[in-house]
């Protein structure tokens, strides 16, 4: 049997094949059978994030959820919709944009990525509307448990405290506790006008100060990222000889938008350093930034190491300095994207260009140690493929949290059917 490249998890194919159910009942029935026969199952959406997480020792079946791709209901006047989990983000976006609405989830490769996979893998996005998390858009969810039982929680209304909010359990659980099959979202109205103010700097400290001053101003950025010149070069954006660029995405009704552009320009304090881009040009920059590590770029290969760090915004300077010192010491080529307001740091490196396997593992272990010492939350979203089975991808959790997570896994998937070992090594 020839298995499509999409289903490979760190080089491993499903040994018994791929099931692509067209209804949730069919999916549930398949999963119940697989569970009864002690098979190991990996749920798959668009396959854009199967590289994230620890390796699976072997797996018997892939359940491809992309056959469940309908919009169940879309109530534009109510700003809510319910969709099957296999719908691609772009397909949903297109439908919503006809009514001038959008779902504030901004995951990479939206042509391929599905709603379910994006939620299950807690996919990052650069546009953080009002700095909220994508889980805040979910108002209801249907999940098929490992036993094949179909369950739901929440509803299709924007305010609801009826029973436990089970959707929270499955967002970021990498399909280890159940398969997301249907999701209800609250939507947002499209901004009348959006645009990006690009501000360039010679050093990271100045860029950080600018970001901090913007956040305490009355401007309300919809997204803000700081990139280094290596990344700007990779995506083909010219910042000449400047070292850092901050992209501030602003939106609102016309007057409110213009006022915010004025505020940001004032903070930059020198019009030579700023440039406003709008329309397609603005959209294209954000698309390129979002997809950079996962798609072919104009001026660089895809990085072979992607490190995602979550920290307090005020810790960013310290964290970036520590991590980049270590990487630079080994002469590894790297670039980065930082979200100053949200506190996320993404480091992209081309490790194998400079280091052998042994040295690469050593670098990863050293990075893990310094991030642990700084009490940062982190995950290696990608490592060189031949190191996948050799390093722990997830950052550190306290023992009691891990114990609870293990208990949740044991309670909801006692036979270890779904994605065993993909999260912490302790689950293996």
């Amino acid at each position, binding site marked *: 049997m020839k298995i499509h490249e999409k289903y490979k998890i760190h080089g491993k194919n499903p040994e018994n094949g791929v099931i692509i159910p067209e209804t949730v009942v069919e999916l549930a029935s398949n999963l119940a059978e697989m569970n009864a026969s002690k098979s190991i199952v990996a749920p798959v959406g668009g396959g854009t994030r199967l590289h994230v997480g620890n390796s699976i020792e072997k797996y018997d079946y892939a359940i491809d959820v992309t056959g469940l791709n309908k919009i169940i209901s879309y109530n534009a006047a109510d700003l809510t919709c319910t969709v099957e989990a296999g719908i691609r983000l772009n397909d949903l976006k297109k439908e919503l944009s006809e009514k001038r609405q959008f779902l504030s989830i901004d995951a990479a490769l939206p042509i391929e990525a599905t709603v379910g996979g994006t939620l299950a893998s807690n996919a990052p996005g650069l546009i953080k509307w009002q700095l909220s998390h994508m889980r805040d858009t979910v108002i209801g969810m249907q999940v098929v448990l490992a036993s094949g*039982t179909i369950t739901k929680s929440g*509803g299709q209304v924007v305010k609801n*405290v009826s*029973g436990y*909010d089970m959707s929270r359990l499955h967002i970021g659980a990498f399909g280890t506790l159940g398969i997301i099959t249907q999701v209800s979202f609250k939507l947002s109205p499209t901004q009348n006008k959006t645009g990006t103010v690009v501000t360039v700097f010679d050093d990271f400290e100045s860029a950080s100060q600018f970001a901090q001053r913007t956040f305490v101003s009355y401007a309300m950025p919809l997204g803000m990222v700081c990139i280094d010149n290596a990344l700007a070069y990779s995506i083909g954006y010219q910042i000449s000889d400047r070292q850092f660029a901050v992209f501030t995405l602003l939106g609102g009704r016309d007057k409110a938008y213009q006022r915010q552009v004025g505020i940001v320009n004032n903070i930059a304090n020198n019009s030579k350093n700023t440039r406003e881009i709008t329309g397609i040009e603005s959209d294209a920059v954000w698309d390129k930034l979002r997809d950079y590590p996962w798609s072919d770029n104009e001026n660089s290969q895809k990085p072979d190491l992607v490190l995602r760090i979550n920290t307090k915004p*005020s810790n960013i300077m310290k964290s970036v300095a520590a991590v980049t010192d270590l990487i630079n010491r080994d002469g590894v080529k790297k670039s980065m994207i930082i979200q100053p307001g949200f*506190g996320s740091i993404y480091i992209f490196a081309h490790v194998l260009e400079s280091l052998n396997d042994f040295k690469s593992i050593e670098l990863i272990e050293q990075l893990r140690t310094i991030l642990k010492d700084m009490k940062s939350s982190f995950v290696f979203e990608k490592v060189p493929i031949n190191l996948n089975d050799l390093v722990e991808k997830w*950052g550190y959790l306290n023992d009691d*949290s891990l114990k609870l997570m293990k208990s949740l896994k044991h309670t909801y998937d006692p036979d270890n059917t779904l994605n065993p070992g993909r999260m912490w090594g302790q689950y293996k």
Partner: protein
Amino acid sequence: MIHNGDTLGSIDALVNIVGADYVLHNKADLLVYEYDGSIDKGMPVVVVLPKSTEEVSGIMKIAYNRNIPIVARGAGTGLSGGAIAAQGGIVMALSRMTDILDVSENDRYAIVQPGVVNLDLSTFVAPKRLYYAPDPSSQRACTIGGNIAENSGGPHCLAYGVTTNHVLGMEVVLADGSIVWFGGTERDSIGFDLRGITIGSEGTLVVATKIVVRLLKIPEHVKTLLMAFESVEDASSAVSGIIGAGIVPAALEMMDHFCIEAAEASVNAGYPLGAGAVLLIELDGLVESVEEESEEIEAICQEFGPLEIRTATDSQERERLWAGRKGVLGALGRLAPNYLLVDGTIPRTKLVEVLAQINDLSQKTGYRIANLLHAGDGNLHPAILFDERKPGDVDNILAIGEQILQFCVDAGGVLSGEHGIGLEKQNQMPMMFTEQDMAAMSLLREAFGTKGLLNPGKIFPTGASCGDVLQAKTIARMGPSAYV
């Protein structure tokens, strides 16, 4: 199973942890803890008032090792019986844990103990031009810990979200006394979202002892509008028009003519007495954005023939308009000796339809129903007016309340928008959820190792008939301190 003998036997051990002054077991002392805002009732055997996480942990260990039910309690303002000791045992009142431990202006968060009063936090951080967004109407009294348990909302959650959207991390104590951190001061974290799954779990999974909350910037400009309409239908259509046009105000509240009448008699808020319904709309943000949205809202409302449109010109007038809204429940006592307050949410586009059903039901049964709504998010609070001294009234209004919830569920809505399930609605859960849904939910208690001791007898159906349970515990008789 109730183990109240074990509870009495644990008093010495509890005294060793918190001191004799903070362990209450005389009946007179316990009476205060028998109720919450719902008039549900349940007498604990002992009340203990810890001051620190370590004391909470010690108390939980005693309860766990001796199989004693334990209920964490904030200010007791809840409206679904969440803080009631349904099976006796220990009530752990967190009202002494009132420290604001840290405020980070740069990272915009605060770390608080669970007994901090909601409004006190916003007042404390106001000099830094920050505030905590979830604002239950009881915010002058309710605590952040209680808000966590109930995932509380508030009038301004329309634009800013409910409690779960504003909590970054929590230190919690598990049933066995272990102290664990879920999340932290970062805005995202790795692993299962243990923080998210425990917020709104009504104290049945963990007890939060430190809470990291997100703080927001105080907006540059606030504008409050009062719109009066001839009928509830016109006001509802205006609400649908506003949301459908893609405008999400900071708050969008509705009151019908019963509420207007009561509020005017009580606080003289300046509501027009002849109106069938009023909308209270608040916009905030940049001056430009508030003014543009305000103009658009006025244009939308003109389509539905408003009797009056008024803008609060200063903070005093704004407060007066809100005083009417916030005092309306207490004021309903002027219209009838008792009322049963219902809490359900529907899709916003169904407001006209469901309010018409409620009106029909009122006409058919002869009971007046006052409608108070967080209309912007479809959260209804019909108050069924009655007199408990009249034979048959209690039975009748309970049946009406259940019928209204059925209207909500049939319209694609839910059983509770903000009061929680608690004791009040546990037997209506099957209206929304299958046995499998509820079984999957209740497995959480197993996974968290609670032994069923944390706030037992809540959320899930008891098996008794709905009428029996409600009648036994619900004679709604809220005073002026009731909030929604």
